[in-house]
């Protein structure tokens, strides 16, 4: 009954997820906090817009296309990161010392450099080589960064499958690649999905960094509004509430998905 709650504590090792807290029904406090935060955010937005339409209503009208860009960057980056993470994660467990070394180096280097610096770097460095639009380079930069985290998730997910599964598949004459594809990965995915959900929320939040590159995401739109109207305080209030609302909804959806998943699988 209490097991679920202590899920993140083992061998004295504590891991606190990256992104927003994904509310589990087991954690009463957080579950209630989710509801309070969610309805609180909606309530506050409504109140502000109705009680002080100037500037709040104008802000609200100014933001929507930014939200779309935020979503676009997030979704595209996470998909690309997944692909990168899959290959790098497989590389991290490869017996080939070159591939293994390269993947490990990628993970180590990328995780050692701030995302913002990577964004600048890839944006400008990429600009020297090929002419990619701002959003595309932002997506690529985010994906390269998150790919390193995904790689670790993929690696851990694969390593969580008992090695007897691989042996049984190989004994039947499957090649290593076939065994991976038909036996290991399908099982690993179940373990991988929850932390990926977590990364998804984290990436959504970090996507705000692309505003630095003048990609017109939610935060950028807010900054544009503020720089023209000087309503910094009001604008950032609204932007923060929008992000909060989005991550709350997202993490709720993820937790529902996870529940479904754990019910379905037997």
């Amino acid at each position: 009954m209490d097991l679920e709650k202590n899920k993140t504590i083992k061998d004295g090792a504590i891991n606190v997820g990256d992104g927003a807290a994904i509310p589990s029904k087991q954690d009463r406090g957080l579950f209630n906090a989710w509801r309070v935060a969610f309805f609180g955010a909606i309530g506050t937005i409504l109140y502000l817009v109705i009680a002080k339409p100037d500037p709040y209503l104008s802000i609200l009208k100014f933001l929507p296309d930014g939200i779309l860009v935020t979503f676009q960057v997030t979704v595209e980056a996470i998909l690309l990161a997944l692909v990168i993470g899959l290959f790098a994660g497989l590389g991290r467990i490869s017996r080939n010392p070159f591939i293994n070394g390269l993947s490990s180096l990628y993970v180590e280097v990328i995780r050692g450099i701030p995302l913002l610096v990577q964004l600048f770097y890839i944006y400008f460095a990429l600009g020297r080589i090929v002419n990619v639009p701002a959003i595309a380079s932002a997506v690529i930069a985010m994906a390269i960064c998150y790919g390193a985290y995904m790689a670790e998730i993929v690696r851990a997910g694969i390593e969580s499958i008992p090695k007897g599964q691989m042996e049984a598949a190989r004994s039947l004459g499957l090649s290593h690649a076939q065994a991976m594809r038909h036996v290991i990965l399908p099982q690993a995915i179940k373990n991988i999905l929850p932390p990926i959900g977590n990364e998804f929320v984290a990436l959504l939040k970090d996507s705000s960094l692309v505003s630095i590159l003048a990609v017109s995401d939610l935060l950028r739109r807010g900054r544009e509004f503020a720089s023209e109207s000087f309503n910094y305080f009001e604008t950032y209030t609204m932007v923060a509430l929008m992000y909060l609302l989005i991550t709350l909804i997202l993490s709720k959806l993820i937790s529902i998905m996870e529940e479904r998943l754990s019910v379905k699988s037997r």
Partner: protein
Amino acid sequence: KQEKVTTITVASDATWPPMEMINKDKKIEGYAIDFFNAVGKEAGIKFEFKNTAWDGIFAGLAAGKYDMVVSSVTITDKRKKTMDFSEPYFESGQALVVMKSSTAKSIADLKGKKVGAQIGTTGAFEVKKNNGVTLKTYDEVGLAFEDMAAGRIDGVVCDTPVAANYALQKAEYKNKFIIAVNIPTKEFYGAAFPKGKKELLEKVNKGIQAVKAKGIDKELVKKWIGTK
């Protein structure tokens, strides 16, 4: 190239009112926009403005992300080494904006204090010339003004039209800020091009001359900057 109207992508950091800024409809507008639309009419070019962060705007130009930068870029010798400029289209100076309560009459008066400017602008370079004054650089000039309103810095240096806009026209700041001094730096804004785009450069120059000849620039000053 045989066509009458070519479309040109123009980068502009639209956080520089009243020269370039974003209006409520998320369209770029301002003095420079009107001016170059007029230039385009004369030269048979269609300019498409693209909002771009100032920091890195020249890196993007060099990388070919856009064909031209119109973003209140002052023509300097150092910049000329890495890019080409059109004829000047606007004369500007630098202005020091301070709180009304301040007694400073020049940047040098702010020794030991902090003065803000947008990163990589001639305003920032101007502050740097004063030993003992701490320069704080911002991504957008508006953030510098906001920081001054919060009391974190003691002055902001930026181009005169922008200073006039912030200190004298914005309701929020009208009662707080004052232009301490206009520094006649005799600097001129030009459109910036990657090195070697002679053909485009000449077309634009012709357009600028035509617009000036028609006196459109005077009208635009009245529209966007107003009388002193």
